[in-house]
C-alpha cells in the first residue's frame, strides 16, 4: 500500500505585506500630524472648559509670565493698514521702507518711541528679549493706541470680523494688573467682547454644568 504522503506545509506567513501596512500607517501619522510651530514666546495658557476652537489668524495680545505684553497682527490683509495708522496717529516718522520691514515682523513688543531705532538696526532684537508694549501703568498704556489703530482698520462692516479674531493669550503666572490694563485698553476703544485663549478641558464630572447637559 502506498503511503499517503501529507506534504508538510510551512507555518510561515509572509510578513512583507503587514510590514508595508505598518510603515505606511507610521508614515501617514507622522506626515499628517501638524507640528506645533516653535513658540518664540513661551506662554502657558490657563485651562478652561470652553470647547470653541481658537481661530488661527488672529489679532493676538500675548502676556508673558513676567508681565510683558506683545501684539501679533495675524490678519495679513489689514496689518499694513494698522501699522500705517499707528505711524500717522502717533507720529512715528517711519518711511515706507521702514513700514515694509516692520510688516514682516511677527511680534510687536516695543514701546512706540523705540520702533524707529529698532527698524534701523542691522541685527534686530529677538522677540523674546523685547521689553514689551508698555501696559503696566494706566498713564502710559500704549495698548490703547494700538487697539485704536486696530479698530480704525476694522471700522464699519469689518467690526464683526474683529470680534471673531481678537484674542488675548496670557500665561498662567502673569499678574492680574497686566490683564486689567489690557481690558482697560479694549474698553477705552469700545471693544467689550473679546476672547481668551485657553487649554480646552472636559467639563468636570458631577458639576452643575455636567448634570445640566446630561438631563
Amino acid at each position, binding site marked *: 500500500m502506498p503511503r499517503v504522503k501529507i506534504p508538510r506545509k510551512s507555518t510561515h506567513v509572509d510578513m*512583507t505585506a503587514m510590514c508595508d501596512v505598518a510603515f505606511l500607517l*507610521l508614515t501617514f501619522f507622522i506626515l499628517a*500630524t501638524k507640528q506645533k510651530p516653535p513658540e518664540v514666546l513661551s506662554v502657558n495658557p490657563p485651562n478652561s472648559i470652553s470647547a470653541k476652537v481658537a481661530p488661527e489668524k488672529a489679532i493676538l495680545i500675548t502676556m508673558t509670565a513676567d508681565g510683558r505684553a506683545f501684539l501679533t497682527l495675524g490678519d495679513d490683509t489689514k496689518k499694513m493698514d494698522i501699522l500705517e495708522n499707528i505711524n500717522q496717529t502717533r507720529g512715528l516718522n517711519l518711511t515706507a521702507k521702514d513700514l515694509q520691514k516692520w510688516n514682516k515682523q511677527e511680534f510687536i513688543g516695543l514701546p512706540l518711541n523705540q520702533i524707529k531705532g529698532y527698524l534701523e538696526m542691522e541685527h534686530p532684537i529677538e522677540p523674546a528679549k523685547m521689553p514689551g508694549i508698555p501696559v503696566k501703568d494706566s498713564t502710559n498704556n500704549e495698548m490703547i493706541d494700538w487697539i485704536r489703530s486696530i479698530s480704525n482698520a476694522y471700522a464699519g462692516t469689518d467690526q464683526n470680523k474683529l470680534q471673531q479674531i481678537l484674542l488675548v493669550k496670557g500665561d498662567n503666572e502673569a499678574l*492680574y494688573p497686566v490683564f486689567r490694563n489690557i481690558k482697560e485698553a479694549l474698553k477705552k476703544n469700545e471693544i467689550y467682547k*473679546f476672547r481668551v485663549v*485657553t487649554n*480646552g478641558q472636559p467639563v468636570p464630572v458631577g458639576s*452643575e454644568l455636567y448634570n445640566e447637559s446630561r438631563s
Partner: protein
Amino acid sequence: MAEMNTAPEKAKKGPGVKKGKKLSTKVDLTPMVDLGFLLITFFVFTTTMSQSTAMNMNEPKDDKNAEMKVKESGAMTILLGKQDQVYYYYGNLDSTRLNEQFQHTNFKDIRDLIVKKKKETNIDDLMYIIKSSDESTFRNAINILDEMSISAVPPGHYAEVPMSKLEQTLIHDYETANDIK
C-alpha cells in the same frame, strides 16, 4: 515561529572542499512589523491633541447710570489673593463682625460654595461679585470665570469689580497672620 532555514545542508564531501551554502533570500520580517507597530503605538500615545480653545469674555460698559443694584441677601463676593488663595463673604461687609464674615478657602472648595449659594438663593437675586487683587494671577481670573460656567451660573449673574481698600487690608491681614508670601 521564525522560519527555519529550509535549505538542506549537504554533507561535506571531504576535508578542504567547501561548497557555498544555499541560503534562503527570504528575510524574516516579523521583527520589523513589530517595530513598525511599536512606533505607531508610540506616536499615537505621545501625540497630545492639544487644541487651543477660546473663551468668550463680555466686559460691561462703564456706564454710571446703568449700575446694578444687588440685593444683599443674594450677593456673594469672591476675592482672589496671592498664592491662589480665595476669600469670600456674603452680603455686605459689616465692620462689627468682620471675622465671622470674611472667610478663606481655595479653588478646590470654591465650587461647592458657589453651588451652595446658587441653590439657597432665588435666581433673580443671585449675584457673584469677583474681585481680583493685584497679586493674583491671570490663571486665577480665568479659573474663577470658568468656575462660574462649570457651576452653570447664568451670564449676568457674576461681575468683576475692583477691590476696595477694606478688602485689601483684610486680605493683607490674613496673609501676614498665616504667612502667605
